[in-house]
């Protein structure tokens, strides 16, 4: 598994989230419930972006239709979504957040 450095840990304080592009994938780095998560930024229901949605207690809600996803597993918690969203491995190395997505080109947005 190849990890890519995406953000300084200080850029995602508790309760915050940031979008990064990794190899063409829009990835949301989330700091919730005292831990970091990396999930797809695209809702599995109608392909809306999740980045402006509410994040709370280990879930994120789509701001348009309200589907919620478990940040740890990507599981859809309520309608209108049924399919999960992708989750990615995430780790902290030397104050950097690193995420494992196939490919390596990185750009913060």
């Amino acid at each position, binding site marked *: 598994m190849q990890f890519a450095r995406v953000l300084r840990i200080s850029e995602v304080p508790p309760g915050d989230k940031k979008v990064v592009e990794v190899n063409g994938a829009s990835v949301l780095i989330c700091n919730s419930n005292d831990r970091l998560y990396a999930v797809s930024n695209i809702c599995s229901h109608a392909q809306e972006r999740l980045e402006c949605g*509410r994040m709370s*207690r280990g879930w994120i809600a789509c701001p*348009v239709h*309200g589907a*919620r996803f478990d940040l740890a597993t990507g599981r859809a918690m309520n*309608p209108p979504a049924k399919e999960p969203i992708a989750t990615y491995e995430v780790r902290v190395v030397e104050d950097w957040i690193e995420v494992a997505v196939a490919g390596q080109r990185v750009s913060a947005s």
Partner: protein
Amino acid sequence: MAVEVKDLKDTKKAKGEARCPDAPTTQEIIAADKVCAPKWVRSESYQFLGDEDIPTDRYIEPSYAKEELDRLWTRTWQFACREENIPQIGDYHVYDIGPYSFIITRVGANDVRAYYNACLHRGTKLRASGTEGRASEFQCSFHGWSWNIDGSNKAIVCPWDFPHVDRKKMALPEARVEILGGFVFINMDPDAPSLADYLGREFKGHVDAWKLEDRYVYLHVAKKLPCNWKLAIEAFLEAYHVIKTHPQVAVSNGDANSQYDVYGEHVDRFISTLGVLSPHLYGKHTEEDILNQFTLGDSGALGDSKRTLSQGNTARQVMADMFRGMFEKATNTDLSAVSDSELLDCFSYTIFPNFFIFPGISLPMAYRFRPDPRDHRKCLYEVMFLRPVPKDGKRPEPAEPIYLGDNQSFKEAAGMDPGFGAILDQDTDNLFLQQEGLEASAKRGLTLGNYQEVRVRHFEKAVDKYLAMGPKKPDRDKLPSR
């Protein structure tokens, strides 16, 4: 204490005036405390409300539940969510009652609205029930009609096909919203009294003293119960059942000498002192037994502190002193001005139809009961534990509800005090037998104690009042426009 038949015959007092004999009253126990109780504790408001049986069709007839939906639930103030569930503009929480569903939405710092949760095109719910989030818009997942968070219509897909629709008249219909102590209440009835008038002035004085807006929900547990919602509520309206249902608690609970009060049509309470022996058990236990048997709702805050009784001290005083120090430390709050009674005792208030607040410190709870609209023999019970917001002012996020399975114990909910979980199991385990017993019985009425069960009667009198009214279904055309 077993009551002989002759005792009943000897009673010369007016109806409702008899109290547990040979035991101090709740007010006498509290008056002896070291740190004095506030006025809202040191008052009484009992009223004799009659002694006729309560007809049982209300618990067992499906048609009665249907009438409640059209008459009672569409007219009463109901707790929908806490303010901390919707801290930021655009945040929403979906609250359901019966078939009705509302998107409780924060539109401004002091502007919370309750939208009927249905698309005005072909009716699809705009948000799934039981969910929360932050809306950029409320867009229907079917054809995409959408609304701004202030309820105004944002867009109709293919507007050329809807020349007959005036978008200005397509704002989401609203129920009324009022906020009390951080609790968001809604009411579907545009003609209902204000929440303040509904609750009455005296109770409002109590609530304002509690500063419940400065608390947050740190544990939220929900479980379906196999009984009518009113039976579930009534299981928590008196301390009369403590000696038989919770024998382990009676050692440290003034059960038979608890105090019962009614306030207007919609609010009642009991005060049940803790750290004192049940009058049923006088002569059978020491102060040390009382100290060791004390059960807490929030013992997690206490850690494993040792309980010791110094000479001449009472169990009640030792517990009060210990709680004050331990709760201050555990929750990072200042409780120096809080009375012994508020720290120890169980204050159970009901706001009709389905909401309980326990403003004490050792039992800092709220209960909510909602009927299952598909089955009059089922209801949803929720218990929420509230802690003071830490002194540094940073409000923790409210707890995510834990839904227990039908056969799970309350003790299994992560964060629940095992002793308190056992009490809730005992309370709710009686209910299926009561539901079935009422259906099996040749007696068509409940017989109630005049004093200890006055809250049950008070509650059912309010049910009667609303059921005597005609049906009132929400009608957009009759709602005032904003």
